[in-house]
């Protein structure tokens, strides 16, 4: 029983990483029309930048600064690499982001080395909160709470701010948004950067949980795409739920049959695609 709880909790945490990734991927797919294969590399970058910042500004400083730094790098990448590809065959952006992921991984290897690095979290967060449930550490609870908070902030931004409203409008009809006087180049850039910022945040949080390796993001990427499909393409809430569901499901399966914990993710996707091809919350517009 305790083992099951342990694995469910672990699954929930991995699910949070999937959810944060899937949210960013969904945003970028929606408005920018790009399947971003470099998302995992941005996640890793977030972790590594936080690693280098921690000695200087501490964990808490790094937690805040690193995602924004990664978001800025994302902004630059959008400007220089992605922008010329809008309106072209999706194959171009697929190849480009895939290549970008490879390049970023190699850069990380060059700067920080190919072997894994430990990422230390503050003592205040590393203690178990309960004697019985030793695995419920402050950090893990913090991680879940912060992820939920970040997600809620994103939803609030999309729902209540003008930029958010325009992003939602642009998901449906970017041309009309542009005819209403909105600089869609800038709108897409902002949207891309926000998506990447979420990858960066996931990276910092994942570093404290899983440690740092250049490929840490790559292994989270595929399940995050699965999360989007399970949750329903076009629904941010769906992406989020999809991430948590497959994370927890993998955790549960680990308890009984560890070898199948990876397969179960794809099994769930297959079942969803057969039973409900539009995904759990698909078809409904963003957030509705």
């Amino acid at each position, binding site marked *: 029983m305790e083992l099951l709880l342990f694995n469910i909790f672990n699954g929930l945490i991995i699910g949070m990483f999937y959810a944060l990734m899937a949210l960013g991927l969904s945003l970028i797919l929606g408005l920018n029309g790009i399947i971003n294969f470099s998302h995992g590399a941005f996640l890793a970058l977030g972790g590594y930048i936080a690693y280098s910042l921690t000695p200087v500004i501490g964990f808490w400083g790094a937690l805040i600064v690193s995602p924004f730094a990664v978001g800025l790098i994302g902004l630059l990448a959008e400007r220089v690499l992605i922008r010329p590809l809008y309106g072209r065959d999706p194959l171009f952006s697929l190849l480009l982001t895939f290549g970008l992921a490879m390049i970023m991984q190699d850069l990380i290897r060059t700067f920080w080395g190919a072997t894994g690095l430990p990422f230390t979290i503050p003592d205040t967060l590393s203690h178990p909160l309960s004697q019985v449930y030793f695995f419920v550490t402050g950090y893990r609870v913090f991680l879940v709470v912060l992820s939920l908070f970040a997600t809620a902030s994103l939803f609030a931004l999309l729902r209540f701010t003008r930029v958010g*409203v325009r992003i939602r409008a642009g998901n449906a009809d970017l041309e009309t948004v542009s005819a209403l006087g909105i600089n869609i180049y800038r709108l897409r850039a902002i949207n891309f950067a926000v998506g990447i910022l979420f990858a960066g945040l996931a990276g910092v949080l994942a570093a404290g949980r899983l440690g740092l390796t250049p490929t840490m993001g790559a292994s989270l990427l595929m399940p995050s795409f699965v999360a989007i499909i399970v949750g329903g393409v076009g629904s941010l809430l769906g992406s989020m739920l999809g991430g948590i569901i497959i994370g927890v499901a993998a955790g549960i399966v680990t308890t009984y049959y560890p070898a199948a914990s990876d397969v179960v993710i794809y099994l769930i996707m297959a079942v969803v695609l057969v039973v409900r091809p539009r995904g759990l919350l698909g078809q409904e517009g963003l957030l509705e």
Partner: protein
Amino acid sequence: MSAVLVAEDLQTYYGKSHILHGVSLTVNEGEIVTLLGRNGAGKTTTLRSLMGLTPPKQGRIQIFGQDVTGWPAYKIARLGVGYVPEGRKIFGHLTVHDNLRVPALTKGRWTLETIYKLFPRLDERRSSKGGQLSGGEQEMLAIARALLLNPRFLILDEPSQGLAPVIVEDVMNTIRTMRDEGIAVLLVEQNAWLALRNADRAYVLGDGSIVHEGPAAELAADEKRVKALAGASLETSAIDAVT
């Protein structure tokens, strides 16, 4: 009278197909100009070319004396050009209020408040989804959205499409009011009689070029010509009967 729009020799393509073969037209301050033509004549393409949505391969466009050839749509809109697209293009999954929060913020008399005063029906339906509105309400929403740019030039693509005759008159009244307030209007219509009754001047488009231009009243008087050139349908006489 100074020109709000001067378009010269527009040549527009969709991919390889050549749609506009040298369209030229002018809209002056204080007038409603209508652009007529059969289905597929290129009316929508002309408006999209003017808005920078389907930029012409050749030709020149001046708006408010400014050369806007090759400009992206958002810059043209910000000059003060309101565009009500064919089919209205309401954001169906957004509320009425959110639809009205999409346009760029501009200075002028039209704000969310004054717009809700002008269209009380939209005020009542503030929190309904755009997709749940009736055709007439959607048309009002599309016009309201364009007005929020505080335009000095309004471009409308078939605003009467699919609306009941009474509602069509409402829409036309709104458009005339705008003209009287100093907004120049370029109006594309399937319904030639309706457009000619409300416009000052008219152009007729046939297969991608202008085949007629002149005062609206003059063209309206030539019933045969209107029927032949603009493809005026029986349904339009029905509207005349009602109004």
